[in-house]
């Protein structure tokens, strides 16, 4: 699956649906469709925000550096 800010929600949904059929079979792919739709929307949304690289990537847990245990 190609992922960048120009990819559409529909194309993500189609790719996930294809993957679901290949991985879990056609029957399960149908059962998974509502979840796939939700994930496609989520993945599309997070790629609509363009991110400049930071020195520390991708993320630390929510714990801040001053309180993190040694």
């Amino acid at each position, binding site marked *: *699956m190609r*992922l960048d800010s120009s990819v559409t929600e529909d194309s993500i949904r189609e790719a*996930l649906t294809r*993957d*679901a059929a290949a*991985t*879990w079979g056609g029957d*399960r792919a149908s*059962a*998974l469709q*509502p*979840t*796939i739709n*939700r*994930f496609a*929307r*989520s*993945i599309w*949304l*997070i*790629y609509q*925000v363009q*991110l400049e690289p*930071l020195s520390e*990537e*991708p*993320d*630390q*847990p*929510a*714990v*801040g550096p001053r*309180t*993190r*245990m040694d």
Partner: protein
Amino acid sequence: MDDLFELSATAMVELVRRGEVSPVELVSSHLAHISQTEPDILAWETLDPDGALAAARLLERNMRARPRDWPLCGVPVGIKDTLHVRGLPTRVGFDPYRDSVADEDAAVVELLRNAGAIPIGKTVTVQFAWADDPPQTRNPWDATRTPGGSSSGSAAAVAAKHVPIAIGTQAGGSLLRPASYCGVVGLKPTFGRVSRYGLMPTTWSFDHVGVLGRSVQDVGLVLDVISKADARDSYSARFPADDLRGAALGTHDAAPRFGVVDEFLELADEAVRDATSDALERLTAGGAVISHIKLPASHELVLAVFAVISCSEGAATYADDRAQFPTLFRDGARANAEAGQLIPATAYVQASRLRRRLRTSFAELMRGIDALVCPTTSTVAPPRATIGDFRFQSVWSVFGYPALTVPLAVKEQRLPAGLQFIASYGNDVGLLRLGAWAESILPGHNRVPR
């Protein structure tokens, strides 16, 4: 002495300290009440009456032999069935784990026992504390309604006075939502404040351990005990030794400054919106200064980050169980487990990068205010086919902020709602102080289900 179960945890501790009531009497009173009402509520996955009475007798001997501060002496507690309790199974709603007896207490259970609390059993959870599969538990206010989830049994047990305190967990909205639907106080502390050692994980980036009780004072009493850094949880953090117990006593020196999250107020249904507006008027009359704030990013974007990270992690955690026992997964958990395996690694990384940046912009919201305020849920408890709406609670879980819900009366409805306060990262002490102050002003917080 038959009605000891009606008392607050704070009152129970005082009676035991004065020698007027024994831990055995407290446990016995609660067990008798549970035996009468549990068939209508189904809050418990496992009850351990023999173990609880034995622990109460041992506590009585220890209190005589080793006089010291026992901050929770004799208080019966329920433990969500995602956390290990030595000698009891941790089933997480999954039949293959039916006989998986824990040989060690979770860190939070260990701390509770050391403070004199008596675990009396494991409370029902939504399977794996994941997805939206309804549990068997009923809402004590109305058996046709959901108690919410995933800490379903913990919230119902506290509302029904089976225990004054229960431990719950929350990755998205799993503690605050059921607390709101069941009309009790719920506290999700700052991420990293309470150890997750001994917790069956759902999503390690978001899993929190928290407290449900019938007053802010009671949950503060418990948070004071369970707030402890633990090297066995890699995300555990050290915090200043705040007086969490004292903070929950309900005094606030200066006029509290609240930022109302308008986006959630607008998304709530009319009854909850009216109840929230009424509460805000009362808080203002009590001296609070209210401002209105706009989220720096849509809640939908934050929840997209949550979905991608949590379902990737959950799918990895339960991959082998899914492979072995697919038909024993409930529908929602199975869908998350299977579709979660399809999320590309790059999407997980992108969500994590975005979370980092969003955290910075959300932290700006807290400047100049003491807490954010919004309804805890968009409606009162819906029918039992669902476990309800998690949007209003999950946004704050993503960033690890401490959040507290206090019960709210809703006009012309018997069912309660909740008012949610969210403080800045690490400021649990300020959150408890504000929560106790607000609780003393808001109506209906001492109502109980029939």
